[in-house]
């Protein structure tokens, strides 16, 4: 009996995961060196020094922490201590706004660059210079000029997620099959009609690939931006737990960030599949 490919792949994934968790558990189970200290002193010291407990938490600690967070995702103890659900909601909202702005700017400009070889060469140097700039480098400039940390974070997401979409749109538009464009010329189709009825559907798969890359970058950027600026958000949560040297919570946050990133990516993958056409 042949096991279907999907099931086989899932089994291999599960086995790899279990192997990793086992290795992690064994690595953190051992005890480190313990000094002799008198009981009054020991009472004032933490577990690492008194029992030699590993500073890295094991998978069981992380698992129970994740469960704790999932039980109460929306609590609100004040401006600096909110549930994981609320922090994620804030981050996703910021990503949403910044990303949408980037789409509104990137797609039209991408079209322009793709359809006009002149604009393509003229704008190329600017794109090449601005593209590799890290979001953390934009942050101080944004804070200084915009003077509002919320809007600065959104600006930084915008400026960093712009480039993949822009370049992919330009590429997609420029790579539309010449036969289709020739047919359009034969039929004397106007520029705008050509753009919307021929070029857009033809370039759509490439544009959506660009959007998929950009959402990944936007999600990456928000975590870094929030660590720098604070407020409410998953990046801020990581930084707050880092303050307390609570590695368990930091690992929890990392896993959550990864899962949310994956979900966002999958959403765009679905969207991409809607516009794909067989060649």
């Amino acid at each position, binding site marked *: 009996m042949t096991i279907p490919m999907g099931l086989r792949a899932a089994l291999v994934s599960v086995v790899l995961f279990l192997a990793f968790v086992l290795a992690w558990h064994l690595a953190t189970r051992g005890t480190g060196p313990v*000094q002799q*200290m*008198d009981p*009054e*002193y020991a*009472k*004032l*010291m*933490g577990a*690492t*020094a008194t029992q030699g407990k590993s*500073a890295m938490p094991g998978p069981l600690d992380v698992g129970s922490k994740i469960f704790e967070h999932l039980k109460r995702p929306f609590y609100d*103890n*004040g*401006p*600096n*201590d909110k549930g994981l659900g609320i922090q994620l909601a804030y981050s996703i909202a910021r990503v949403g706004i910044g990303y949408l702005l980037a789409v509104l700017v990137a797609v039209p400009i991408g079209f322009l660059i793709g359809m006009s070889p002149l604009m393509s060469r003229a704008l190329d140097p600017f794109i090449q210079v601005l593209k590799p700039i890290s979001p953390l480098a934009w942050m101080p400039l944004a*804070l*200084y000029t915009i*003077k*509002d*940390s919320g809007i600065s974070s959104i600006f930084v997401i915008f400026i960093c997620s712009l480039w993949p979409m822009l370049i992919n749109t330009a590429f997609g538009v420029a790579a539309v099959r010449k036969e289709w464009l020739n047919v359009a010329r034969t039929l004397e189709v106007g520029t705008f009609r050509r753009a919307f009825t021929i070029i857009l559907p033809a370039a759509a798969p490439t544009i959506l690939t660009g959007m998929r890359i950009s959402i990944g970058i936007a999600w990456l950027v928000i975590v870094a931006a929030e*660590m*720098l*600026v*604070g*407020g409410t958000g998953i990046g*801020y949560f990581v*930084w*707050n*737990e*880092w*303050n*307390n*040297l*609570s590695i368990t919570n930091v690992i929890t946050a990392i896993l959550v960030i990864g899962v949310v990133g994956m979900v966002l990516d999958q959403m765009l993958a679905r969207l991409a599949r809607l516009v794909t056409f067989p060649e």
Partner: protein
Amino acid sequence: MATFDNPFDADRRLKPAGCSCGGHASQAEHDFHAQRQLQCVPVASEEKRYEGVVASALMRKIFPRDATRRAFMKSVGASTALAALSQVFPLKTATEVFAQGGALEKKDLKVGFIPITCGTPIIMAQPMGFYAKHGLNVEVIKTAGWAVIRDKTLNKEYDAAHMLSPMPLAITLGAGSNSIPYTAPAIENINGQAITLSIKHKDKRDPKSWKGFKFAVPFDYSMHNYLLRYYLAEHGLDPDSDVQIRAVPPPEMVANLRADNLDGFLGPDPMNQRAVYDGVGFIHVLSKDIWEGHPCCVFAASKEFVTTMPNTYAALLKSIIDATAFATKAENRKQIAEAIAPANYLNQPVTVLEQILTGTFADGLGSVQKVANRVDFDPFPWESFAVWIMTQMKRWGQIKGEVDYAAVAKQVFLATDTTRLMKEVGLTPPTTTSKTFVVMGKTFDPAKPEDYIKSFAIKRSA
């Protein structure tokens, strides 16, 4: 003083006569007594004091001629007079309004803080109700670092903030940012820092063996930077060429110590105690042993906030002074540690904070030390502190050129404002705004700042 005299006393004269307070026959006598009296006359409570003031004003209006008032008092007696008065005039309400000192311009405030024990008065005032007591609804917002707190206060996202004591001076002088007038009306804490070294250096207690070490301080414009440099210079090391000093945010100091990126740091608590708690470092020397009573962090507000919203500013400052007074008492420290430990505030284990605040702590080398004033709280912003900070800024080349030390100190460290508000909450402020003090055995005289800078062998200024 006539204002505080009992208006229902038949035997006293209510109208001021002879001297400014009305209690003496002549101004000369008043001056003589004022000099001897360093404390305000204690009152049963603040409310009683305010009640007397309002009643006084009322009686003077009703009986413009004092003789008539006294005759009235003699005939009906104090309690009847009070009852009669309260029928026609709401004395209690008037007293409350007066005690508030004017309507608050803004009740919902945002105050930024860094999660270190230096900011204890600002932080504890929220969960322990000091802000609410003075009619304010304050949200204390945890901030990622000193540069961010500076930026957010400058762009008005925060109304006021917890800052390092040199920061308002640097901002006013335009060092490291635009020049915007800032004020530091209250010191948050004195002492409370320490030089912590990596546990692997536990045999290298002599600073002369520290050549090539990498140290961290929280910020370039901080008491930590100046104290560390002072300590190193006194032991013959040049802080710029013999060791490396970098700015590292306090939470990352412990992690960097563990990862061997740093050999030590002069940082705020709870980082020192946390390094000991996690077994990665030991406390080499407490900052109070470098300079006993040094300021560390301040409560800072822009001059604009102070001038455009004076009543809100007064209420905010009073809450913080109140909280500071509460924190000075040793018996309250344990309670404070529990209040500021949760994730919403400092996010540290309670035992670490208890060790810091009560002064009974593990030092990382196997013994339990008992230093009661390891961290202490005294809100008075001595102008001489500001002058010392500026001399060190000049010494290490952070500010150049001529500095009018006394003028800037007066402008930024608002000693007179704080004196007034300290009296209002029942504390005893000092009578002068400047004093000499001793740092590592060397006396500092705030009247001679340039000579002090010149007297050091290791310095960057000419």
